[in-house]
């Protein structure tokens, strides 16, 4: 074997623009989707041993032999990539850390290069770019029609390569929208890219972590919502069906919609950077140079392997791609200035300054025991420590004197169970016996349990601690404060979006409240 070092990267020869997938209604009349489908079909025909095959590229995101075999994507008798190749390339995705966004940007870039190569080989345009799915735009919250079972206009040969049976469980043509009830753009209001795994929102991009970690918790703001929720809502099973491919990191990239979802997440990162001068990526070497123990590596057309670090993912101009639109479906729902005004600040703040990055985070209270989830939902009381609750009250009161109010979070800690595809809705102070659907104003937020099954395995990479979610409940706490004061406890109701499959054991280790402020 002769090793030859050459200069090559997935950066396109000419600058390209990633388009909205809903051009021409998101059907096969959209040439971007038609060429994508042709390239996907070509990759799906390649053998698994080819690192640029569809399945091998999906395995870069995540791979579990037993799971893949169970859904027909793995055959032990089929030639496999060499063990060294599997070790180097497979199961790399970075979740729950500040590497989530840069790792996925490089993954998309390399995938796009492989697809473009197949597009060109089939006679398509050399400037083809990956479309994005803007599910926050009006009328675009359903999967683009070209990806559905009933898609019209696929010229063949063979079945529509953009459709997979394992989407929406066993009912793949049901309402495919990712409900606006569950997903939101609150993360776009985060001022800091990086945070910590200590009870508060772990930043826009994720908590600080120095090593390569193929999945840990909690997830960063953008990752938890909308990223996780879109994964889980697209892969949500019904009563009979197994979870869809998108609901688990180990299978998600097998679904062709995965790549359009992540193009939108990547677009949201770029939009976040451009909305405020304070919105910057980390500048410390530990982020720029990537994990200390392992690099990121992607196969490219022609048998090359490209390695990269977060520093290389910093500027779209250097990467020679941009997005058709960076404003549509990217604006956060509320501003900090509006919050101050509600709390009676003398002069509304001009900018978006919230509590500073080095603020204290501390526990305010928690419920007293683990919860076993049932389809009808569970209710618990989070007891608040009087002294810490008074700190929160003081900070809210001080706003009138120019102080910075605390932010407050509700954590669902150590959620465990084989519950890929489950979305939990969390309500605060729901009237006893009320139907949650009648009280959307009490909804604190939703949690898509993306990766919970793997995180619940005692011998899995997360030690069995499960999924920990963080929901900001600052608005609810503000309302309680303005209505007369914070109570001794918060009644929290957790309801699965859909009934749990019979026999599913799903538990929440603790429900807790944290404050972040002085």
């Amino acid at each position, binding site marked *: *074997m002769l*090793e*030859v*070092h*050459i*200069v*090559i*990267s997935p950066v396109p020869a000419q600058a390209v623009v990633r388009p909205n997938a809903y051009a021409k209604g998101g059907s096969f009349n959209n040439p971007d989707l038609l060429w994508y489908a042709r390239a996907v079909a070509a990759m799906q025909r390649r053998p698994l041993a080819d690192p640029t095959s569809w399945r091998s590229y999906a395995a870069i995101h995540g791979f579990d032999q037993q799971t893949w075999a169970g859904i027909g994507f793995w055959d032990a008798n089929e030639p496999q990539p060499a063990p060294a190749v599997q070790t180097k390339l497979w199961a790399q995705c970075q979740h729950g850390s500040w590497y989530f966004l840069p790792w996925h940007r490089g993954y998309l870039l390399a995938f796009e290069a492989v697809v473009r190569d197949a597009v060109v080989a089939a006679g398509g345009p050399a400037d083809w770019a990956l479309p994005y799915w803007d599910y926050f735009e009006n009328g675009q919250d359903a999967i683009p029609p070209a990806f559905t079972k009933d898609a019209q206009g696929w010229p063949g040969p063979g079945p529509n390569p953009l459709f997979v049976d394992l989407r929406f469980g066993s009912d793949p043509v049901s309402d495919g929208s990712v409900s606006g009830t569950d997903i939101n753009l609150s993360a776009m209001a985060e001022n*800091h890219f*990086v*945070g*910590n*795994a*200590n009870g*508060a929102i772990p930043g826009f991009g994720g*908590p*600080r972590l120095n090593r390569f*970690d*193929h999945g840990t918790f909690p997830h960063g703001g953008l990752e938890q919502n909308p990223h996780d929720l879109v994964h889980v809502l697209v892969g949500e099973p019904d009563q009979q069906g197994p979870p869809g491919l998108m609901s688990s990191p180990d299978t998600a990239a097998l679904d062709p919609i995965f790549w359009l979802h992540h193009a939108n997440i990547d677009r949201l990162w770029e939009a976040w950077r451009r909305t405020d001068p304070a919105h910057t990526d980390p500048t410390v*070497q530990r982020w720029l*140079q*990537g994990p*200390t*123990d*392992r*690099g990121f590596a992607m196969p*490219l057309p*022609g*048998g090359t*392997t*490209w*390695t*990269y*670090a977060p*520093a*290389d993912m910093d500027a779209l101009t250097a990467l020679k791609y941009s997005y058709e639109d960076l404003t549509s479906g990217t604006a956060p729902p509320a501003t900090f200035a509006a919050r101050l005004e509600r709390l009676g600040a003398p002069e509304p703040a001009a900018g978006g300054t919230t509590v500073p*990055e*080095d603020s*204290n*985070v*501390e*526990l305010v*209270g*928690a419920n*007293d025991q683990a919860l076993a989830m049932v389809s009808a939902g569970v209710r618990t009381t989070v*007891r608040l*420590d009087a*002294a810490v609750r008074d700190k929160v009250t003081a900070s809210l009161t001080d706003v009138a004197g120019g102080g910075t109010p605390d932010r407050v979070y509700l954590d669902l*800690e*150590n959620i465990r169970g084989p519950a890929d595809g489950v979305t939990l809705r969390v309500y605060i102070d729901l009237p006893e016996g009320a139907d949650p659907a009648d009280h959307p104003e009490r909804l604190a937020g939703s949690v898509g349990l993306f990766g919970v099954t793997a995180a619940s395995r*005692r*011998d899995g*990479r*997360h*030690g*069995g*601690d499960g999924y920990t979610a963080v929901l900001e409940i600052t608005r609810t706490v503000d309302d309680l404060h303005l209505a007369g004061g914070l109570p001794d406890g918060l009644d929290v109701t957790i309801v699965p979006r859909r009934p749990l499959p019979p026999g599913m054991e799903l538990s929440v*280790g*603790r429900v*807790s409240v944290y404050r972040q402020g002085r």
Partner: protein
Amino acid sequence: MAAGSQDLAQVRGTLVTIAAAAWLLIGVDTVSMGGSAGHGDAAAGGPLELVSLAAGLLLMLAAMMLPLLAAPVYHLWSRSLARRRGRVITLFVVGYFAGWLAAGGLLTAVAGTLRHAVPGPALAVVVASMLVWHTTPARTRCLNRTHSHPAQPAFGLAGDVAVLRFGLTHALWCIATCWALMLLTLVAGPRAEPVVMAAVAFWLVAERLERPAPPRWGLQIPTTVARQVLRGRPPASALRGRTRRTAS
């Protein structure tokens, strides 16, 4: 640096400082008295010897085990009411060291018995036992459990009892993982003991840096530390030519 990072650094710094002080005392003890930490002979002991044995074991455990506790201690620090942090961490450490002291006494007795019964091959017996244990899936399973950080009640007696139990449980998984290495330390003899202790402590830290892994037969070598050392800093820029092509 964000507040959480400062807290984590503070927790790590405190534990490492205490461990370093313990190592210093062990070093002084070795130089001045020929070494006694943790390898007394319980069978020969009256109360004073037992106290001496416990003190030696505590010193040994502080030196070797405290750096391993950064993750669970930070977990408790960040997930407890601020006014209860000191109490919670103290109870965890008490539970943890109580478990280890009991196991350490037992291991010391076993080491003493081995040294008396088979003075020559004692070390070889322990090394063989260690190698066998380290190749079993059961050991990996125990090691995986040391990564578990369960949620704890936040208030009152229930919180106290739960965290004490967490400390004890954490110790039990730790003991199940490390008993053979600790036995090796105890049979090494006074002269070799500090060196073996240091080597074992390094191994334990390196092993704890690994993520949990599927249990399987075979010696599991921790590689994260080595990869960090070998990798150092990644080359400057991927886009300036770090692509490798393998051609036949």
